[in-house]
Structures are given as structure tokens and as C-alpha cells.
């Protein structure tokens, strides 16, 4: 049996964590994988944290939900850091938005990547790109989907009329990948 990626993306509302998950999902389908996306929903979302669970797998998705056993965690803020770090499977990856999260992961059975996405986005001159930059890092490391598939997915998720944003998003993905490469273990 092939590989099953169990990805959690978490952060504040507004950081684009939900669409990060959707982009992975769509890209997974484009790459011919079995996929699912599940948002956490609830009133605690009111200005609070948001997160979603994504599966990208070679085999049909049974349970679309996983409490633990996360293979890839993206934590964009401190509450998410506290919530998700313990749920990552041994050998999994954790991507930390180190622009905001100052703490360090206190586990040695996981691979941790600190990506200062807010700073990187500012470098690109567009604070909204933090999630795309993070995605670039994630797929560079964990090889969940193809980078080009993310860009195709972008048009699916945000509509074809957003085509003009493709170049800047491509740049953001590359930026994330680039930083990730320097951190690769």
C-alpha cells in the first residue's frame, strides 16, 4: 500500500489556513491521488483559531478525520502550535510560522521546519501570501503534490478570473521551497 499524507493546517482566521488545505486537496486530485478536506468548524472560530484536515493518499480515503497520527502539521500561530505539535506522528513534519511563533518544538522524533512566512511575505510585498509561501515549503519537503498542481488548483479554488495572480503565487511557492531547501535534513 502506498503513502497516506495526513495534513493539518492551523492558525488564526485570516491566515489562509483553510485555503492552504484546499489547495493541497485539489492539487492532490490533479496529481491523481485520493483526497479529502475537512474543516474544523465552530463558534470558537469567531476571531479565533481555524484549522483543517487534509488527506492525500494513494489508496481510497477511509476516515477523512484523524485526531492523531498527523504526518504533516502546519502551525501558523501559538494556540495551534500548542494544540497540534503533540498530535504529529513520529517521523512526521511540523512547519512552524516562526514569524509569530517563538516557541520551539520539544520533540526529537519529528522533523521541524521554522519558516518565517510573515517576514518572507513582506519581502514579496504581499502579506496575504503567507499561506502560499508555507505551502511551497511544505511540498518541497514532504512531496505531497507537485508545485504546478498547486497553481492549477489555485484557479479551481479561487476561480479562473484570478489567473493574473498566478505569477506572484508561483514566486511565493518558490520562495517557500527555497527557504525549506536550506533547512532540509
Amino acid at each position, binding site marked *: 500500500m502506498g503513502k497516506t499524507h495526513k495534513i493539518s493546517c492551523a492558525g488564526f482566521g485570516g491566515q489562509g489556513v483553510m485555503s492552504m488545505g484546499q489547495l493541497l486537496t485539489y492539487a492532490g486530485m490533479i496529481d491523481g491521488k485520493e483526497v479529502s478536506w475537512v474543516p474544523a468548524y465552530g463558534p470558537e472560530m469567531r*476571531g479565533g483559531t481555524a484549522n483543517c484536515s487534509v488527506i492525500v493518499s494513494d489508496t481510497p480515503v477511509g476516515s477523512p478525520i484523524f485526531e492523531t497520527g498527523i504526518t504533516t502539521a502546519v502551525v501558523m500561530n501559538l*494556540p495551534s502550535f500548542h494544540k497540534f505539535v503533540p498530535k504529529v506522528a513520529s517521523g512526521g513534519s511540523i512547519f512552524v510560522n516562526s514569524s509569530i511563533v517563538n516557541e520551539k518544538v520539544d520533540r526529537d522524533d519529528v522533523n521541524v521546519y521554522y519558516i518565517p512566512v510573515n517576514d518572507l511575505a513582506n519581502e514579496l510585498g504581499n502579506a496575504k501570501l503567507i499561506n502560499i509561501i508555507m505551502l511551497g515549503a511544505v511540498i518541497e519537503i514532504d512531496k505531497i503534490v507537485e508545485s504546478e498542481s498547486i497553481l492549477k488548483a489555485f484557479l479551481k479554488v479561487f476561480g479562473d478570473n484570478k489567473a493574473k495572480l498566478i505569477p506572484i503565487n508561483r514566486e511565493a511557492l518558490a520562495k517557500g521551497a527555497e527557504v525549506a531547501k536550506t533547512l532540509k535534513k
Partner: protein
Amino acid sequence: MSKFTVTFNEKECKGCELCVTACPKNIISLNPEITNDAGYNPASIANMENCIGCQSCARMCPDCIITIVKND
């Protein structure tokens, strides 16, 4: 010492800026230096001397962040 002391519960402030807009003396602003756990920059007052104690900020604050003390 200023006539009034306005304090903000910075941990709980949600940075909504209603107090900022309400202040007739325009002395309140969000503090970009601090990000609280919930991710907000809390409100604060730089020049407390200008405060006239009108309580407009506190009346507009939805989260009871503001306490005002009159220093007699």
C-alpha cells in the same frame, strides 16, 4: 501625574479600535509592539495627560478592557 489613568487589559483586548475612534482627544491607538495570545495588538494611550476622563472609550469597549481611575 495625569488627572485620569486609563488602563487596558492588554491580554484580553481584541484590537477592535472602537475605543480609538470613540476618543474625542484622539489619544488611543493600537500598540504594534505587542501581539497578545489571541493575535491582537492591544489598545494603549501614550499621552495620558490629554485624557479628559469622558469615558467614551470605555463605553464603546465591548470587552470591558478599560478601567478608568480619577486621580484626585
